[in-house]
């Protein structure tokens, strides 16, 4: 890698890490996702700063081309993230459903209560 590329890549990964921290600071990211993305940001910075590290790990694992190891790990990670988000979405859908049901039940109960209240004075007059 040329010096120029190296600097650009390093600035890019530091910016990503800074972006993650800023999102956290503004409370746009929940704690449960924070750990995940902080780790990703840190790993990104470390591997950009020390490219030789990736080569050494690939040799140790018997992977011929270092970038292939990177792609493999990245794809595995992304599949994990997508699966997790699908799970979260399903959970949220379930919760929305429950909330909608609760609102509907409350509306009916309120309507019935109001009707009873309207009827109460009439009954008093009839007596």
């Amino acid at each position: 890698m040329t010096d120029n590329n190296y600097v650009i890549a390093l600035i890019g990964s530091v910016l990503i890490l800074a972006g993650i921290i800023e999102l956290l600071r503004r409370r746009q990211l929940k704690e449960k996702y924070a750990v995940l993305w902080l780790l990703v940001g840190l790993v990104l910075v470390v591997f950009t700063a020390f490219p030789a590290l990736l080569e050494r790990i690939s040799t140790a694992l018997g992977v011929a081309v270092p970038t292939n190891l990177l792609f493999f790990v990245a794809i595995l990670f992304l599949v994990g993230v997508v699966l997790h988000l699908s799970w979260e979405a399903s959970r949220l859908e379930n919760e929305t459903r429950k909330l909608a049901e609760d609102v509907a039940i409350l509306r009916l109960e309120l309507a019935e209560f109001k009707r009873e209240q309207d009827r109460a004075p009439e009954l008093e007059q009839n007596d």
Partner: protein
Amino acid sequence: MPVSASVLRPLIVVPAWNEEQTVGETVREIRTATPEIPVLVVSDGSTDLTVHLARLAGARVLELPIRLGVGGAMRAGFRYAVHNGFDAAVQVDADGQHDPRQVPALLDELGDAEVVIGARFCDRGDAYRVRGPRRWAMVVLSKVLSWLTKTRLTDATSGFKATGGQALPLFAEHYPDEYLGDTVESLVIAVRAGCVVTQVPARMRPRRGGDPSHRPLKSLLYLCRAGLALALALIRQWDVTPAAQKMRPVGEA
């Protein structure tokens, strides 16, 4: 009859998630200890008899349709308190760890502070003991929070807390729902908003149901999460002042 000199209308909030074993006994005990303070049980999406048994024991019950966590349940309690003209809220756990006879002692301190923590580790004769990484985490948290609040806190993670003054509308708007947020981060928010935090010694009892985990791996995980929660709390921004002014109680309900 006012319960204490500084607080006119306190409310006891009991967050409960599937606590059918203990909630009834806890509510009855609170009502015996402090008959003049209303009790609000916030059922955090319980799927057992918690709601029914709490009502039978004479508590007002908020039924959350989905589980929000302790912080979420407590914020619901704080909002209820603000909307209904209460001027203080005391958290008492449903598992019987907190002794309701100490509630007046917490309320008494509210004259000089907005958040009062009932803290263990103040005296030796404590039935509740913590060891290992969990203990270290608690010590570190207490040290950092003591420094932030400029007062000596021995038990920052205690849930036994009284909230009053401007901290009540603040918490009604901003109480965190994340892991340890209801204890650690809430104190940081209170300090940022200029609230005074203090503690009174409180004796914790062993829980009635379930037992606190002391397995090493779990304690270590707790240590990491506590560190993260503290770091997050410290770097996060909170727009605390406008919210505290926005959510003034509407009037006596």
